[in-house]
């Protein structure tokens, strides 16, 4: 039956039809359950009333499911950007260091197979090479994240965010 406050038709089986995944719900605190509109209104203004219900239900659905995501994205691109950028840079550095460790290990084992040891000069070269590669990877990640932010803010997402505000509904 229709909820007296929101006038939304709350189908009894709505939570049975779909269960929100845990991660999704936890991330944005959306309340589970879909919005349904009573199609069987009666009275002289039945059509207007139904449409009014529909607008309300659509907007509530948007507020519940999409608006938190928009807010999150705005946060990620503004106040949260620095932290996320550092994360990305850190990941790039970590990835490069890991690859160096792996490849050097392989090389050491190969040389051991020939009965040879890595010289100290070799180790120094490798260390210089790693430092240089890490600097390159960090710079790459920094530029990449800034480029991406520009694209997000000026591109499709940016215009979508400004086109539709809560007020214009």
């Amino acid at each position: 039956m229709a909820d007296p406050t929101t006038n939304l038709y709350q189908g009894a089986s709505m939570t049975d039809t779909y269960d929100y995944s845990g991660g999704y719900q936890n991330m944005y605190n959306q309340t589970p359950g879909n919005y349904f509109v009573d199609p069987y209104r009666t009275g002289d203004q039945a059509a207007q009333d139904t449409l009014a219900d529909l607008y309300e239900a659509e907007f509530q659905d948007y507020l519940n499911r999409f608006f938190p995501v928009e807010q999150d994205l705005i946060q990620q691109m503004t106040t949260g950007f620095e932290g996320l950028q550092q994360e990305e840079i850190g990941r790039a550095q970590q990835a490069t260091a890991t690859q160096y460790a792996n490849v050097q290990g392989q090389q050491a084992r190969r040389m051991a197979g020939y009965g040879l040891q890595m010289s100290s000069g070799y180790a120094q070269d490798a260390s210089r090479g790693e430092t240089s590669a890490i600097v390159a990877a960090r710079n790459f990640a920094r530029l990449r994240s800034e480029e991406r932010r520009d694209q997000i803010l000026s591109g499709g997402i940016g215009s979508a965010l400004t086109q539709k505000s809560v007020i214009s509904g």
Partner: protein
Amino acid sequence: MSGGGSNKIKDTKAQKALAKIAAKRFNLYQQYYVPLENQFMSDVFKMNSPTEMENVQSFVTALQQPKFQKQKVMQEQQMFAQGADITSGQFQDTSAQMTNAQARGMGTGTAEALSGQLDRYYQGMGNIIAMGQGQAGQAMSGLGDVGALAQKRGIAEAQSDMSSYANTLGAAGTGLGLAYGYSRGKSGYG
């Protein structure tokens, strides 16, 4: 206007029928499309998780490793064929250079892939927001169940294939948006 009569305009039969259809379409959308959208959203939200990033990293490593390894073996064989002495400084220098190149290449490649995965995540977020814009802006309506199921299956199958996973996911999101826009355009009101 006579006496105590209502001055409200009565809805016509046609208006009532359209409104009823619109409500039913909306309910169908809620029942069939919303779970699909939520599934898509959930998949997108996971794309920048540490687990997913690790997956990308091992995937790229597994992809690059054999190529570099093969090249290295070939180069060494070439040097042996030219009579290089394995204990010589020259051989070891060259070997060190190749190792460094491999490590650098694999490191950069991995960094690139990790940033690329983030690009995909944000592309997914863009798709979600596009969905929401349609949703908030105006009505919605029913949809082809066939299309919905096809998209769902596409997402499920794409998930089993790491390499095409995110790409297909992006395409699925676009598909959802398109299908949604189409059904919205055909909706009986608004």
